[in-house]
């Protein structure tokens, strides 16, 4: 598959990159690791006039820094593998490492960046197939048509969010920094996702995700990222569950819990009901209640031809319960600190 023709530029400053992206509006696309974008180009899902390469941007975008007070700062250009190999990330955020090392293959982890992973496009049973297969069916909402092939009769696009890193970072209450041509803002990660299958995030032309900020782990905290898929490598999550919790000193009482899902909606889902665990003893009934709340929020559709949506939805309960048990085990052994 040949790539479509495009011009290429690799600016050295964030400001310059933002300006170039804004000037060309939707005709320019930023490229970080390229593993998600090049497939879209090869399949002619995107045909930009200009690719703005982010790999010459300043060193701050490649930074990994941890302090017990401020927590973790990860530059947007840090590769998944660099983040997963970093001592502080391994020691303080093992759940994030599980998510990072579950992405694609070793090669994809080396190439893919954190910023790129968070910005990855939504997937569906029709949109991501070869141009040849797409030609045999009417174009869908995401391709400017009027129908949805994933959910028949739907008036909106149901392409599913299938990133692994976002649910882990959501459960860790991460924030992201977005730099635009004339602006810079830090927002909670959950506000980044639009739940619109056609355009999964709120980035505007000219915006670049430059930094991820993760608060320091609480004392006696534990977590788990569990991923449902057919093969242990390469596959996107058919369901991903990221969970982080902390326990009150010397007791099995929950101090704080955060839960997020992926692969089962148009955005990664932060399950607000996890907040209700606060101050409660984590007995089976309480954990089942959380699993039930997560189950109700999940809407898996035919993203792939493997495993039925019903099975994947049923597995939400099982995976949430398992994640809570693993997190409690880790926390009660003293936690990640």
């Amino acid at each position, binding site marked *: 598959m040949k790539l479509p023709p495009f011009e290429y530029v690799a600016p050295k400053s964030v400001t310059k990159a933002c300006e170039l992206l804004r000037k060309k509006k939707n005709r320019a696309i930023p490229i970080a690791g390229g*593993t998600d974008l090049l497939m879209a180009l*090869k399949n002619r899902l995107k045909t930009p006039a200009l*690719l703005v*390469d982010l790999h010459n941007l300043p060193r701050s975008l490649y930074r990994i820094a941890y302090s017990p007070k401020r927590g973790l700062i990860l530059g947007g250009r840090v590769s998944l593998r660099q983040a997963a190999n970093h001592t502080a990330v391994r020691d303080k955020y093992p759940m994030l490492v599980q998510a990072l090392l579950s992405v694609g293959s*070793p090669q994809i982890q080396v*190439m893919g960046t954190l910023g790129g992973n968070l910005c990855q496009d939504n997937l569906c049973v029709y949109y991501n197939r070869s141009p040849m297969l797409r030609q045999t069916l009417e174009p869908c909402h995401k391709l400017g048509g009027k129908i949805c092939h994933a959910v028949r009769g739907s008036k909106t696009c149901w392409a599913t969010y299938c990133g692994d890193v976002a649910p882990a970072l959501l459960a860790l209450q991460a924030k992201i920094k977005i730099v635009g041509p004339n602006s810079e803002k830090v927002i909670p990660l959950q506000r980044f996702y639009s739940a619109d299958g056609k355009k999964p995030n709120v980035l505007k032309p000219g915006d670049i995700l430059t930094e991820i900020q993760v608060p320091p782990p609480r004392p006696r905290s534990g977590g788990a990222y569990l991923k449902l898929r057919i093969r242990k*490598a390469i596959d996107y999550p058919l369901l991903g569950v990221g969970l982080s919790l902390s326990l009150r000193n010397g007791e099995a009482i929950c101090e704080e819990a955060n839960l997020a899902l992926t692969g089962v909606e148009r955005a990664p889902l932060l399950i607000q009901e996890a907040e209700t665990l606060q101050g409660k003893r984590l007995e089976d009934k309480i954990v089942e209640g959380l699993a039930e709340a997560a189950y109700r929020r999940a809407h898996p559709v035919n993203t792939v031809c493997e495993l039925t949506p019903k099975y994947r939805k049923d597995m939400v309960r099982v995976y949430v319960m398992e994640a809570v048990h693993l997190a409690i085990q880790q926390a009660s052994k003293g936690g990640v600190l």
Partner: protein
Amino acid sequence: MKKVVTLRINGESYALHLRPSQTLLDVLRDDLELMGTKKGCDSGVCGACTVIMDGEPVLSCMTLAVRCQGKDILTIEGLAENGKLHPLQKSAIEHGAVQCGFCTSEWLLSAKVLLENNPSPTPEEVQTAVSGNLCRCTGYEKIVDSILAVAEGKVH
């Protein structure tokens, strides 16, 4: 518009006029006739196009060649030195870890990176390291055995 890019491949420098839309894989195979790097799925899944760039395994089908200026690239053609096979290559032959041969050149490179970073890997670590290289003959057992034999010093 074409750009002049200098690629450093297997220790040799090549100055090339490249279109931004050329992948490293296409440049290796079509322009430099280094056919050891295979084109399988051409979509980042099978790993047949793996090369080592600055010490890490990457997919050349998902890499724009214009981004590789100044990078140190090793393809399978550069694995044997001075006509002498790399221990991993010898071990692959001794263990019969080659069936159709399509994935061989690429898992060898993934294995090379693994052993450089982790000289005594467990069988699970070996499996993970080559998990991005699909073997359509499903000959994984012998692939893993042949890599472990090198790590254990059984093949020099």
